[in-house]
């Protein structure tokens, strides 16, 4: 049935990139190209599929049995889930971005051990240190050092 085809496509479109781009699996160029394309179209595509599913439900509802109606509701729920997931960045769930960037003077920086490594940037007389233990989690931090807007990555 067209209804179930829609649900399957909606789910496939959002689940495929998540499966291809997993941290401990290898990626090929194809994996990346496919994932990029899917992630680009999935927000619109899933909404379109949701509209199709909704319309089909509306048409089929009156003549349908109870179990059939239950399945239709499930189909709608799954397609909605797909549309929602298409708009999420699940990597940022795993590694929250650092949204509030603030600093301490050296005297107040007891949260860094002497032996810890830092990523140090100096520009136009301004010096900043980004502790690796924090960067290894956040992965990237936006900042401006010496009037130069930078992104610090690890």
């Amino acid at each position, binding site marked *: 049935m067209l209804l179930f085809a829609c649900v399957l496509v909606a789910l496939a479109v959002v689940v495929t990139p998540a499966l291809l781009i997993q941290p401990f699996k*290898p990626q090929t160029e194809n994996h990346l190209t496919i994932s990029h394309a899917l992630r680009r179209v999935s927000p619109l595509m899933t909404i379109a599929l949701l509209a199709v599913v909704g319309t089909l439900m509306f048409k089929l509802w009156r003549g349908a049995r109870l179990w059939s109606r239950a399945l239709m509701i499930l189909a709608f729920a799954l397609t909605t889930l797909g549309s929602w997931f298409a708009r999420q960045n699940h*990597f940022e769930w795993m590694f*929250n*971005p650092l949204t509030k960037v603030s*600093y301490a003077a050296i005297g107040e920086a007891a949260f860094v051990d002497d032996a810890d490594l*830092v990523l140090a940037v100096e520009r136009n007389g301004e010096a900043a240190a980004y502790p690796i233990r924090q960067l*290894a989690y*956040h992965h990237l931090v936006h900042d401006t050092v010496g009037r130069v807007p930078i*992104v610090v990555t690890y």
Partner: protein
Amino acid sequence: MVNGRALRFHLYGINNQNFIMRDEETGSWWQQVSGEAILGPLKGTKLKPVPQDEIAFALWKREQPGGRVLRPDPRVVSLYAKADWETRMRKVPVATRTFDKRLDARELVVGVTLNGRSKAYPMRLLDPASPLLDVVGGVPIVIVTAEDKRSVRAFSRRLDDGKVIELFGRADVVLDSASGSQWDFSGVAVRGPWAGRRLEKVAILRDYWFDWRTYNPQTAIYSAGL
């Protein structure tokens, strides 16, 4: 900044254990280690690298007493890497399909690329050899480790007047053979006839062998005694 516009990035994925970020402005995907956009409207664009050091906090404090330190995010501080993360990380499996077995996949190396030529220096060989003299891509360089045996820097051995110098000594006392001046870890001559002169820093990358090799397939490897 790209084409006059400041981009804003988000962690978005991973590519053979090196992360991918996406910019809000164009939706392009960028590879972290190379700073290059690999997919999307800005494909092929490279972000301009900013000179940086990966050094021990104690050393940085001495060099930059007026510097600022990024504060941790209190909501996720318990998720930050533990102090021994480097030891733990060595046991994490490597997913890349093919790699060069000349070195162990998780061997820590210091990578240098100059004029299109790359070379990897295993970290364990650097401290005994420091100051290590070499030539990469036609550029005479010196790689030095600090007394903490973790902080590493590289400099060009060609002075501003074109003269190429040789350096020798141990961690805290490094001299050049031409003038006998003493040079410190920030590349400045602190004592002797050339006091005040500076060596130009050369960009290095501390990386695992498997990742360095993935992005520098033609890389040479330093072996002691050669």
